[in-house]
């Protein structure tokens, strides 16, 4: 069914591509006065083909190797070819974008392909429609997500792939309305995509059920009732960019249920129902940018908080401020918090031996970015520390553009904490350094 949907998107894409080629003829009507002001008669190519070659290597520095792991000390070793094919009709009303990767994973020793994005779009009046696999990013946080309910690829991020790989596309439709006083977008996703969490073959992380013999995964079935719906209504209100959000769908990180608590043979990972309601505001403030975001996570399958397999409902809040300290030197700070509802019920239902979370999880973060030599060098540091979990995450990175097309980066992912069951602390033994080469064409 998902394949049918993607095929449909591809068919639409082909339709627009052929339409855009057909319009390349001289008879194409155009109201483009700017073009009529041109003197040159160059031929336009209706379809653009771009992309990049990417080489990625990440090496674990702790010397420890996951049980039944792969790749020895290598966390990542791959070569990727990105093809980015796009086109638009002359009016720009119809368009398509296809971004696909083919890659060789030297650790798993396999070739594979991945459609990163592939959608067809059509605009009419104040409406924009997009159909297909598309990456959507909402909210105002830097690596803290409150109202960005769309899937993430944490394994990519923690193993040093470029930032864009943190986001995964959703397979669905988006309609946006842009009005003079109000804007809105609604996203319908019939095909569920979970977060990509670090894999046990390459990362150390806390999984109390890792040793259970049978591991099953249950994704929400495709159907009208299970279709995720996300809504964002936004406008500029005085000095603020204000957005209001609502989402009805699922947690993207699974809960786990055992067939038998005392002697489990099967652990079933499932994605509990979730609704999120939130808002964000952002404005220029003291020559910088001030951001505020909050969201209520309504864990619909466990409103009482008594089911230990399902996260309780919670509040998420975020405040951030970013400004330039000197020329080409920017600093940003954030404060982020999660507040669990029904904490007593959670504590009472927690199985013996399971680590107990605090009611409140707070994290502070800082990002420093310094650009040098006409922005051909970028030094950056992202640092996050949780005083409640007592753990931290550091990501320093140096990037250099050798030419417009060729760039190299080196950096590290460093995790630590008092306990190996907290968010960053569990990755303690997964510290790695990474190196990237990228050639754009």
């Amino acid at each position, binding site marked *: 069914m998902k394949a049918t949907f993607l095929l449909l998107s591809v068919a639409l894409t082909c339709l627009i591509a052929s339409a855009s080629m057909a319009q390349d003829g001289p008879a194409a009507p155009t109201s*483009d006065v700017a073009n009529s002001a041109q003197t040159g008669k160059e031929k336009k190519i209706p379809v653009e083909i771009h992309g990049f070659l990417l080489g990625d290597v990440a090496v674990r520095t702790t010397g420890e190797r996951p049980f039944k792991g792969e790749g020895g000390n290598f966390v990542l070793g791959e070569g990727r070819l990105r093809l980015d094919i796009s086109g638009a009709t002359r009016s*720009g009303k119809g368009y398509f974008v296809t971004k696909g990767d083919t890659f060789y994973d030297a650790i798993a020793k396999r070739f594979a392909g991945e459609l990163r994005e592939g959608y067809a779009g059509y605009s009419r009046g104040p409406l924009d429609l997009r159909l297909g696999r598309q990456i959507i990013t909402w909210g105002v946080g830097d690596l803290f997500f409150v109202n960005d309910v769309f899937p993430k690829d944490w394994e990519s991020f923690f193993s040093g792939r470029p930032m864009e790989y*943190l986001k995964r596309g959703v397979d669905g439709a988006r309609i946006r309305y842009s009005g003079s006083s109000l804007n809105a977008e609604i996203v319908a996703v019939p095909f569920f995509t979970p977060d990509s969490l670090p894999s046990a073959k390459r990362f150390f992380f806390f999984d109390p059920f890792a040793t259970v013999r049978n591991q099953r995964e249950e994704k929400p079935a495709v159907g009208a009732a299970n279709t995720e719906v996300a809504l964002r209504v936004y406008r500029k209100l005085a000095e603020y960019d204000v957005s209001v959000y609502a989402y009805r769908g699922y947690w993207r990180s699974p809960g786990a249920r055992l067939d038998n608590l005392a002697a489990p043979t099967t652990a079933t990972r499932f994605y509990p129902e979730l609704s999120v309601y939130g808002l964000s505001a*952002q404005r*220029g403030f003291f020559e910088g940018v001030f951001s505020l975001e909050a969201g209520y996570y309504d864990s619909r399958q466990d409103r009482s908080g008594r089911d230990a397999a399902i996260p309780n409902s919670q509040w998420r809040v975020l405040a951030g401020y970013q400004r330039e300290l000197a020329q080409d030197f*920017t600093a940003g700070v954030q404060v982020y918090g999660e507040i669990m509802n029904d904490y007593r019920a959670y504590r009472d239902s927690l199985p013996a031996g399971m680590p107990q979370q605090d009611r409140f999880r707070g994290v502070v973060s800082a990002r420093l970015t310094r650009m040098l030599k006409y922005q051909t060098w970028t030094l950056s540091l992202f640092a996050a520390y949780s005083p409640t979990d007592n753990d931290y995450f550091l990501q320093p990175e140096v990037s250099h553009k050798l030419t*417009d097309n060729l760039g190299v980066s080196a950096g590290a992912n460093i995790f630590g904490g008092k306990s190996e069951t907290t968010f960053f602390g569990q990755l303690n033994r997964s510290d790695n350094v990474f190196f990237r080469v990228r050639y754009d064409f």
Partner: protein
Amino acid sequence: MRYTTLSFMLLMPVLPCIHAFAQNKPAATEIVQKSQEAFYYSGNDMKSNVTMELITADGKKRTRVLTMLRRNDPGTANQKYFLYFHEPGDVRRMAFLVWKYPEKDDDRWIFIPAVNMVRRVAAKDSRSSFVGSDFTYEDISGRDVPADTHTLLREERLGDADCYVIQSVPKAATEYTKKLAWIDKKTFLPLKEEYYDAQNQLARLFTADKIENVAGQGGKKSYQTATKRTMKNVKSGHRTDVTITRVAYDIGLDDGIFSERSLQNPPQQWIK
């Protein structure tokens, strides 16, 4: 008597000049104001394709290609800019939206195509390098006139043009201490600008290398436009050559183009 006559005759051609100069000499601030209008505000709106070549002292070249759309807010000095990047590959489809207000901080947004994200960006970095070039953000969209103390130093010819030479000293500390600008008396375009550092040494040099007269849509008005410009860092030898093509004025850009929608769905009609 003879002496008096001679001196009188000598003065004769000079006096009317002094007189005219005293009478019609525009205040320095007024010249700068007019220059800003000629350089940054021509027409009701404007579209142009901008090619920037970033060239190191040893000749290594990088290139940025972008489309710039601008619209003047009728009745105010506010402006809106939309910038869309075509090259290089790592910034392709990236777009900037700037709502510029002379009397307060600008509103600015950036669109990052790789993750389909629109973000507000800080207004402070007006002195930061524009996409790694020798131009600052301020050089692209203009510096507030009251931010400097302007003095008319002299008038002199630069090439074929009669120019006012204006000294502008920033009131608040920035990375330059003064700017000398040669402003064409006819077109009010800046033909040359020298930026001096704290040691009073020439640090950056701007030149308008080619001026073209571009007719506005409808043909009623035409606008003098600097279609080739250079900014050189005199100390490092690095320079940025800018070529502006496909310039069009008064094309009726709708205010709605300068919105978040355009960041994600760029107006194809205008950015090609």
